[in-house]
């Protein structure tokens, strides 16, 4: 009587085992790799806004400091988006009547805030605070990139946990003097980092409760 399974089925059984193992390992690894790609973190994706507000015009062209508009960055956890009343004084009446600024005009006259779309967003279970970073020498550029070159703001950093923790493990090389917090295109100086870390009493915060509280 011939064997029930021909000889080649041995190879098939081995191949199947290997394939199953590969799938068990490969699928989670692939998924883990995928969530770190810009596709999944929405990095570099420009976000359309109700008003075509251009940071290039205002920051590079008009030399307005970030804190003129995002003025709560230094003293609260939120950097904040400026109320439309901040836009009015610079934009003369002729401008305000242009179509581009119609939503701003409406918001000012009705007292209803303009709804901007969020660009950088952390999940609800992460605690983040602007004031501590800004006051300990972490510049806007380190996390938001070259905003002065963005026609539409996009998320410049992956905002994954590994990204946050990487800096928290050793923040010194990322620090800059407080006078250069909003400077774009800051060239970091190697020796300055540790000195600044000492001056601003910067700690390395990596316990889970720093960010998950």
């Amino acid at each position, binding site marked *: 009587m011939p064997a029930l399974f021909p000889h080649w089925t041995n190879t098939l059984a081995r191949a199947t085992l290997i394939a199953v193992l590969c799938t068990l390992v490969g699928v989670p690894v692939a998924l883990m790799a995928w969530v770190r790609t810009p596709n999944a973190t929405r990095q570099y994706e420009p976000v359309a806004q109700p008003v075509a507000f251009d940071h290039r015009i205002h920051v590079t062209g008009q*030399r307005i400091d970030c804190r003129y508009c995002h003025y709560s960055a230094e003293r609260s956890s939120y950097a*904040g*988006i400026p109320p439309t009343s901040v836009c009015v*004084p*610079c934009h003369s009446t002729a401008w305000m009547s242009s179509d581009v600024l119609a939503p701003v005009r409406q918001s000012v006259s009705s007292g209803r805030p303009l*709804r901007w779309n969020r660009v950088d967003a952390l*999940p609800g*279970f992460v605690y983040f605070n602007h004031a501590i970073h800004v006051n300990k020498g972490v510049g806007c550029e380190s996390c938001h990139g070259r905003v002065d070159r963005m026609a539409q703001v996009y998320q410049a950093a992956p905002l994954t946990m590994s990204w946050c923790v990487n800096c928290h493990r050793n923040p010194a090389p990322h620090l800059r003097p407080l*006078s250069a917090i909003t400077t774009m295109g800051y060239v970091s100086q190697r020796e300055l980092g540790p000195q600044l870390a000492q001056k601003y009493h910067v700690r390395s915060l990596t316990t889970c409760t720093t960010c998950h509280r």
Partner: protein
Amino acid sequence: MNRACVLVVIIVAAACTKSSEREPGDFERMRIQQRDEPYAASGRLAIDERMRHPPAGTMSRESEADSGAIGSGTSAGQPVTQVPLAVTPELLALGHEKFDVFCAVCHGAGGFGGSIVAANMGAPRPPSLRSAAVQALPPGFVFNIATKGIGRMPPYAPQLTARERWAVVAYLEQLQRSTSTSAEQREDSVRAIGIRGIDSTLAAEQQR
């Protein structure tokens, strides 16, 4: 047995949420929580904001009215003629920083009114703060301009605390006393140097 089943169903059902509260395509990783974020729309209230405004006719305890000359810039109805805080190097440094962020935008880092924004604004243009007329203004008056705005200039009370506004006034006084070159030398931030550069060309033009 039946009771155990009911118990299991209750426990499992307790973990359910309305599908509208879930992020599509996400496996309920608690990324969106039932918590109000600042600046979010309320969707429920008449004014569509989650951050509430103080009720009309109320004021916060730190607000100006009850804190004398420091809060109001006036004493006995007259603008104070001296900065009511000790003018220390720290206060001047604070004033320098805040002036560069909030005032230099329009009045120029040197205070000559030569910023790029001023050139684009059209009349009434932000005036020079180095003119004799402005130098003659008492500090309490300048403080009140920073607090409440004047004409086309908006109020800066939301952006700057009373102490910061006094620091700006003290720094402005120092700036008015200095010559423009020494102001340039004290400057360290790249952006403000840019503004000062434009400023000093304007000052040179005015002298010509």
